């Protein structure tokens, strides 16, 4: 079906990976975009500095859901330092590109990840 979203975006929108919550998460990041009302929440389970599990919940458009889903796939199994290197461009690229007005959705995913890692570090002390 022709449309503004790539097949990858539509795939992640229809079949989001790692959707849900982690009850005993080690780090939780929640960010929102006031301009469009999107809210993204990311849960991390971390062992020995490694992200062993990740889940997300997102209120948002197709691009926001796909960006969250792709972010979880890209960071699962990575160390915290590796995950921190993930840029919003890398998320957008992995999705086969986002429409120009939707690029901020990948920024939101990057922000959610950073917030979750910060939360983890704060809890760890």
């Amino acid at each position: 079906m022709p449309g503004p979203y790539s097949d990858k975006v539509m795939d992640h929108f229809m079949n989001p990976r790692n959707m849900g919550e982690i009850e005993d998460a080690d780090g939780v990041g929640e960010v929102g975009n006031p301009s469009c009302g999107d809210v993204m929440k990311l849960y991390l389970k971390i062992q020995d500095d490694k992200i062993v599990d990740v889940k997300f919940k997102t209120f948002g458009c197709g691009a926001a859901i796909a960006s969250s889903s792709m972010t979880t796939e890209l960071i699962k199994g990575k160390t915290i330092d590796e995950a921190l290197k993930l840029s919003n461009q890398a998320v957008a690229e992995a999705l086969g590109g986002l429409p120009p007005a939707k690029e901020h959705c990948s920024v939101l995913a990057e922000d959610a990840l950073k917030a979750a890692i910060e939360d983890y570090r704060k809890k760890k002390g």
Partner: protein
Amino acid sequence: MKRIYFDHASTTPVDSRVLDAMLPYFTDYFGNPSSILIEEGGIPHKAVEDAREKIARLVGAQMNEIILTSSATESNNLAIKGLALANKDKGKHILFSDIEHFSIMNQADFMRNLGFEIDFIRVDNYGVIDMDDLVKKVRKDTVLVSVMHANLEIGTIEPIKEVASFLKGRDIVFHSDGAGTCGRIPVDVKDLGVDSMTISPHQFYGPKGVAALYLKNGVRLSSIMQGGLQEMGYRAGTENVPGIVGFGEAARFAMEEMDERVHRLATLGKRLWDGLESTIDYLHFTGHPKKRLPGHVSFWIEFVEGESLLLWLNLNGIASASGSACASNMMAVDETGLKASHVLTAVGVPPEICHGSITFSLGKDNTPEEVEHLLYVIPGIVKRLRDMSPLYASFKQREDRHN
């Protein structure tokens, strides 16, 4: 699977009878209507005038009160610019309602640059124009007021007659954008009391690329497109003959079938409204519950984002529209294209929720089965999106604690 089209407020399919009437004017009768002395021009000339008569009849106007244009946007531009310029010796103040279409709204800066002053008239939470605000904002030098007949995003029909009777005797010209109403519900320009009105045939099973402006006899209008003397000198440019012929036929069928269409749409719309109300919790309808276009149902659902809902409906074969600028302007260069809908903001819907609004606009060929199918699939989609929403999760927690 056959698609279910519930987006008639965006556009409607061309009626096959309308298309059949148009086709010969691409081929057999291709001539220029201005070449009236040769046979090739005489036939299309007559076809254009016949169509003009049908269009005039649809809205209760005289034939010489119909100016043919290329789109509702052009008609609205001709009205605002043409009426303001023709009356500028009387004053420089213009009033627009807060919920006008972009083709009115986005003229504001241009008109200010020409030296006009623009103010906006508020609407209430149903989207109905606030008469007190209109009375308050009219000035001695007000020359033009523009209030649309019905808003296609929220379905509300405006009290045009009331506005017209207030403006009558004040020497203020009154334009109304009738793109949402003409051909959809009965419209009589004399009864409404407007000075000009935009008519758009692709809203009632006619073609795109053609429209009209009703201009009451005696009202002064400046031309904004200079060239030949077509359309009584108000609008230069060779006529879109096949489009105009289709416009005329669409107007004729709309008139002949008006009662039947309105009745059918009102019945289907009521079923859809009631069905949504009883199956989806935390759903809020937008627009006026009674004074609204038949077959038009618009709403937003708490904890469900509009574009995601629209995409899932689309994947299920159902076409709808979202008030979400997120969905409509996504090819804009950046996220400034994502401004919340000015219509929803005007009716008091918070900007972050504006993106959650959905409009179903039914058409003459929709069936009760299609409405039932929508009501069958939508609860599952809503549940799926709510299950994904962090907002819904925390809302549920609060609710559980409360109980």
